[in-house]
């Protein structure tokens, strides 16, 4: 079938390897050696690969084919715990409070399971950011919890305002029993990185309003914005001291699916509980103990959290690869803004982190009017974009944004060439679209 393009490019979701990013060599070498231990004895693999694979194999019972310890193999949990202690500069982490998961979505789902009360009225509510992929996603919807939207500020880089949280909470209390606040930092698709002050406000808010705090910190590895720093909620909480640090029940979520690893398909992640009631934690243990997690994902996670040290044979190459990914991302963002700035009717807040761009479409009235006959305007835009150029992006309405503003989300974790092609198609289409509907 003839079309004006040869292939569809799908940047509607964060799937880095599918859009041209390469896996980290060391990670894959270790995994391959664990799968096929003959490689450990050969000298094809660097020494540090072979050593790491040997250690890991010993911990998992000698074969990647074994069922893993269902709370994640102990060495994995220790690795996570050590990593967190290092990352948060001394704020202690105990492996007893760490749970290995399939990834962040899965971790979020487990937390929701713990909260919901079936059909008992009122339903529990979770304050969920808009725009976000989690708003309205199946995990939340199917769990029986009510997703209560709080709107990030699209005019101010998508930051959170406590006033907005308060508004959301007040309105929530009329229809459900709000029990948790879900925060994504760095933000996705918004690209916003929270300041320490903002995080402290959030912590104060949950403390006063007696809410659980769920922090999805999946994009913590790579920040783009100048001077932007990732601090974990756990660290901020600890440094705020009493009464917050003893009281706020925090669950932090992370995985090997994003950042420089991009290993979504391998299913490796973890979550950490802080200040949860010990008997609830036992129930959580029970819940998790039903799970059988894929070992390969845990291996990827372990390598991510226990990286190479200077002096090891593969260290330099590993650092180069991370650097390359960073540079690619920065390049993609720069190019994207160059292109967007040259186009009428499209604007974007700064991107400081995450793996997406979330430009706003200033659609002409004619387009909005025509769209409304059949569907939402940004969906209308996206489906025409797909049909005419083979470029697949995600409409903002999918991420919970209300009527009135229109956005698209595109993944920027792509190879440089792919991004060029994405921008070329988008630019061409957008110019034509604005002309056609002016």
């Amino acid at each position, binding site marked *: 079938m003839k079309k004006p393009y040869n292939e569809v490019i799908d940047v509607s979701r964060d799937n880095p390897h599918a859009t041209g990013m390469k896996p980290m060599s060391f990670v894959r070498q270790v995994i391959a050696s664990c799968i096929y231990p003959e490689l450990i004895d050969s000298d094809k693999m660097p020494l540090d690969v072979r050593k790491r694979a040997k250690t890991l194999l010993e911990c998992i019972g*000698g074969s990647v084919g074994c069922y893993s310890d269902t709370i994640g193999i102990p060495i994995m949990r220790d690795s996570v715990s050590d990593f967190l202690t290092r990352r948060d500069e001394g704020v202690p982490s105990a492996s*007893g409070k760490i749970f290995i998961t399939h990834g962040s979505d899965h971790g979020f789902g487990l937390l929701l399971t713990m909260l919901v009360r079936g059909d008992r009225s009122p339903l529990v509510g979770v304050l969920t950011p808009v725009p976000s992929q989690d708003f309205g996603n199946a995990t939340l*919807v199917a769990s029986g919890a009510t997703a209560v939207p709080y709107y990030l500020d699209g005019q101010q880089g998508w930051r959170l305002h406590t006033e907005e949280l308060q508004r959301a909470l007040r309105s929530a209390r009329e229809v459900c029993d709000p029990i948790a606040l879900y925060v994504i930092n760095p933000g996705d698709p918004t690209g916003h990185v929270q300041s320490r002050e903002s995080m402290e406000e959030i912590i104060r808010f949950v403390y006063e309003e007696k809410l659980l705090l769920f922090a999805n910190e999946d994009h913590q590895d790579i920040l783009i914005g100048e001077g932007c720093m990732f601090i974990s909620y756990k660290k901020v909480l600890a440094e705020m001291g009493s009464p917050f640090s003893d009281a706020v029940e925090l669950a932090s979520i992370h995985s090997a699916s994003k950042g420089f690893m991009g290993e979504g398909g391998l299913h490796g992640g973890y979550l950490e509980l802080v200040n949860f009631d010990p008997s609830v934690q036992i129930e959580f243990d029970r819940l998790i103990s039903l799970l*059988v997690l894929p070992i390969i994902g845990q291996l990827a996670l372990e390598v991510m959290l226990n990286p190479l040290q200077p002096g090891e044979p593969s260290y330099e190459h590993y650092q180069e690869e991370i650097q390359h990914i960073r540079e690619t991302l920065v390049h993609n963002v720069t190019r994207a803004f160059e292109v967007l700035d040259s186009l009428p009717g499209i604007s974007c807040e700064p991107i400081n982190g995450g793996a997406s761009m979330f430009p706003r479409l200033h659609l002409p009235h004619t387009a909005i009017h025509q769209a409304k006959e059949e569907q939402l305007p940004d969906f209308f835009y996206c489906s025409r974009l797909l049909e005419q150029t083979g470029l697949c992006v995600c409409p903002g309405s999918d991420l919970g944004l209300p009527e009135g503003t229109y956005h698209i989300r595109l993944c920027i974790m792509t190879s440089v060439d792919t991004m060029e092609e994405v921008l070329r198609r988008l630019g061409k289409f957008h110019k034509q679209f604005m002309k056609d509907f002016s």
Partner: protein
Amino acid sequence: SHVLRWIVKGSLALPIPISLYLYILCYTISLQQRGTSAANMSQKEVNGSSHRGKVLTLETMNQNVRQVEYAVRGPMVLRAVQIEEELKKGVKKPFTEVIKANVGDAHAMGQKPITFIRQVLALCAYPALLEDDKFPEDAKLRARRILDGCGGQSIGAYSASQGIECIRKDVASYIEKRDGGIPSNHENIYLSTGASDAIVTMLKLLICGEGRTRTGVMISIPQYPLYSAALTELQGVQINYYLDEDKCWGLDVGELRRSLTAAREHCNPRALCIINPGNPTGQVQSRQCIEDVIRFAKEEGLLLMADEVYQDNVYAEGCVFHSFKKVLFEMGPEFSSVVELVSFHSTSKCYMGECGFRGGYMEVVNLDPEVKAQLTKLVSVRLCSPVSGQALMDVVVNPPQPGEPSYATFTKERAAVLADLAEKAKLTEESFNNVPGFHCNPVQGAMYTFPRITIPQKAIDQAKAAGQAPDQMYCMKLLETTGICLVPGSGFGQREGTFHFRMTILPPKEKLKYVLEKIAEFNAQFLQDYS
């Protein structure tokens, strides 16, 4: 997004999160002792702030989680782990190691992985190895095919939720070949995270209604406790039908009918689950039996769920694995165009034993097209199954063929694994039938034995006084005395007044002999102590 709106509109009113219950496997527990690591925590952090209540407490949390009986998990395995810790610390015991004959984990018991499988997977994990001439061409061929199906040629990319298309096509071809040419369509194949994930998905689809119209699901007793746990979680009604221990755990249609009729008084029976070869019972159902079940399902309007994860594990003379699909189609269009059947398979068992990869699939047959569309939607809104597991499934359904470089080694290794299991099955049956008070049916297939044991009245009374199931008390004492960890029959269901345990036949032969001896010794002592 439209899919989500559909679901939000309640076309699938699911009370409980999908993502969690995909991975229920009740017996893989090694709950580590939770070290308090007191050095790392303030007392307050351990206990939480004392002056202020927690937001999430036992009372405010999901009560379903607290209520589910995770049958095989429990005191046995917890204690086994504790004992391991004690041994490590040098505590003296009448044994030097804990032998975990409770869980069907072949590799953990020393079974070797199949070389070809691991070669293909290593190539997929690190494609630079495709340049390495140490890897055979047939492995490279398969790796390339799999990688071509992956986004960006990487197993780290998310795949389509139903599973990579070329792999589903390979699965369909495998099924066709296995079933003598009966067609299989890759659109009816769903790749899943082990078979458990797919089983729970189907149960979610089935369970609805309230009170007397609540969905009932027939499951065999004894059963693999995934089914009972899932039914409890999903609040489906469990309908028990008993396998006949005196007829080698055979299935009798009369019993099916009895169970169904009784169930109709209080629920709406809609599905029948059958595990063949059986877990824990190890029976391989005869062709006649399978036909009877299909006929029954047609007459009574039941959806059949055929759990066939042990399909290569068949040992006994005269026993043959017949897939439900094959039999269904050979019964002619009167049945094959009507009976709704879902078949499950996995990469965790058979000769592969690759539990850690979480590979599996289900094939749906004769599902209402609109229901199938809903199923596809249900599956499509969540993440795909682990891609490494999908890759593994591809190798399993696409093994080396005669003439290919790896054929000889592969065939040899596969045969060796299965022969070893067959030998151990026989050894176990014979040993146990020489133990006074034991009655052990032949282990025709799968990887477990489920002997009936005799527990003297005195012991039964003592157990009941302690609030324990008698076979649990037996197994606990066995563990303390010998370090051998088994699973009490009460965890699987059994006829009132009978007692069993489940033991795997996976330990290496010498260790298995040791285990069988020790159990015999223990049993003799036990009978004496409680005479």
